[in-house]
């Protein structure tokens, strides 16, 4: 399989379906594992890394996952393709630009990936759209069981699964939920949310863009404690308590905007529409920022029946943009596609050659104009 087979569309987990998908973009569970009888990667020679890679690759490729799976040698993959895999959330930045023999196994529908020789020998992850942590946990656990039949993991009765960094020790589980919280930002409550989550010992970072900046109001929330608590308890805390509560706060903020500050809301949506439909140059950051407002507007219309003048225009626009027989709407999927496909590596891979930032800005603006103007 070639990466261009998947680069033209969004991944399954970003298609806008799944429980609470207007606010919860996706659920992800990752397990960190190491093979017994080997050193951790920081002390492995290239030959030992290759041996681990081969062993784990053979096991993973033999798994029955209900989807086609393919393998990529990350260290031999061109830089642009590695950037693409990071944008796609299929591998970490650390894995893309690390050292030594390493690879990734990817299910074609992108719900499962396994990074071999990242920080640990093996990191397997399951991704689903909306809030579906329990299902992710069940499925990744099953895959983990299948792998465990074929190798011995480094495990201690006291400390659990032994990981290269003690912060992943025990269960080796990282539960992450990606959230779209534009109304909390607009109503000035986002700092309160960030502080509260940090007080609860959770990690928050941006979903798109570089580093920790939360471009486009997308936030990724993860557990930090992995020892002394069971996988099921961590998942239940997120799925039954933490996330529903945040979703409620975001919905309250959206209602607050509608009832108390409809002009502010409409201004944001109108400006975003005007700029996105007319700009000739647009940076990745600006596109994320503006698309975020449209995403919220459409979701507020679909889920809450909001119909302020700007939201109405946005919906009329969607009716006018298609042909008369079959009006094409600017759906959440359209917006999600733009979020994904206008990222730098996606643009270049789909264009077929590398482009500098200025040319990317032109191409990005063109793709957005064409999607929003019909």
């Amino acid at each position: 399989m070639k990466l261009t087979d998947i680069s033209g569309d969004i991944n399954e987990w970003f298609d806008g379906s799944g429980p609470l998908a207007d606010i919860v973009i996706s659920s992800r569970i990752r397990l960190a594992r190491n093979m017994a009888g080997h050193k951790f990667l920081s002390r492995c020679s290239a030959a030992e890394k290759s041996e681990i890679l081969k062993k784990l690759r053979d096991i993973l490729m033999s798994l029955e996952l209900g989807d086609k799976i393919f393998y990529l040698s990350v260290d031999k993959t061109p830089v642009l393709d590695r950037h693409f895999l990071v944008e796609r959330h299929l591998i970490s930045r650390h894995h893309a630009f690390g050292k030594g023999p390493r690879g990734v196994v990817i299910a074609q529908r992108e719900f499962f990936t396994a990074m071999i020789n990242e920080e640990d020998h093996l990191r397997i992850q399951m991704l689903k759209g909306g809030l579906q942590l329990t299902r992710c946990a069940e499925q990744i656990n099953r895959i983990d069981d299948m792998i465990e039949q074929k190798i011995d993991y480094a495990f201690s009765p006291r400390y659990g699964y032994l990981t290269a960094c003690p912060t992943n020790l025990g269960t080796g589980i990282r539960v992450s939920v990606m959230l779209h919280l534009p109304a909390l930002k607009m109503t000035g409550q986002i700092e309160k949310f960030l502080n509260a989550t940090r007080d609860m010992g959770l990690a928050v970072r941006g979903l798109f863009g570089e580093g920790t900046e939360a471009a486009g109001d997308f936030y990724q929330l993860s557990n930090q404690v992995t020892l002394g608590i069971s996988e099921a308890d961590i998942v239940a805390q997120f799925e039954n308590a933490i996330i529903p509560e945040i979703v409620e706060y975001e919905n309250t903020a959206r209602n607050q905007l509608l009832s108390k500050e409809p002009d502010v809301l409409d201004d944001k949506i109108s400006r975003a529409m005007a700029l996105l439909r007319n700009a000739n140059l647009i940076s990745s950051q600006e596109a994320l920022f503006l698309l975020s407002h449209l995403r919220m507007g459409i979701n507020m219309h679909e889920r809450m029946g909001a119909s302020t003048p700007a939201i109405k225009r946005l919906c009329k626009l969607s009716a006018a943009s298609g042909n008369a027989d079959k009006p094409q709407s600017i759906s959440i999927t359209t917006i999600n596609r733009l979020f994904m496909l206008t990222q730098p590596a996606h643009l270049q891979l789909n264009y077929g050659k590398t482009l500098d930032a200025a040319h990317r800005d032109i191409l990005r603006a063109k793709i957005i104009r064409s999607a929003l103007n019909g």
Partner: protein
Amino acid sequence: MQCQVCQKREATIHLTEITDGVRTEMHLCEHCAQEEGIAVKSQLSINELLSSLLATQPSDDELFGDTEQELSCPHCGFTLGQFTKEAVLGCPHDYEVFEKLLLPLIEKAHDGKTVHCGKVPSKMPKDTKKQIKLTALHQQLEVAVQSEDYELAAKLRDKINQLK
């Protein structure tokens, strides 16, 4: 909102000070806030956590009475000095070799917990599985008692007794 100092970057730090009933507000970007000496870091990176913990710990010499050489793992040759630089260990045995030194860090990183109570590989002996299950139940019991859920606590106590 723009930063009051540089007038360029977006203000992300908002301070309200009330002195003698007079309220003053400051809106700064992260960069200028740091310049002004206002602490804005809410999360410690793993490296910072390590450095701060290891700096306050007794040295290897003090712990092991070995003044000649730094303790190193017989399996991988790893030393704690390398750990402070790289933030990752050398091999699974390091958890035993450096246990005394790592324990405070593990405790800090995992909210005071130091014993696994999650999944156990199916190949593990039955006794190990039972032990880990008991640890998990004891922890759940502790939470139930703290939150005064005595019905759940009673059920958990029965389960513990059954397992024993």
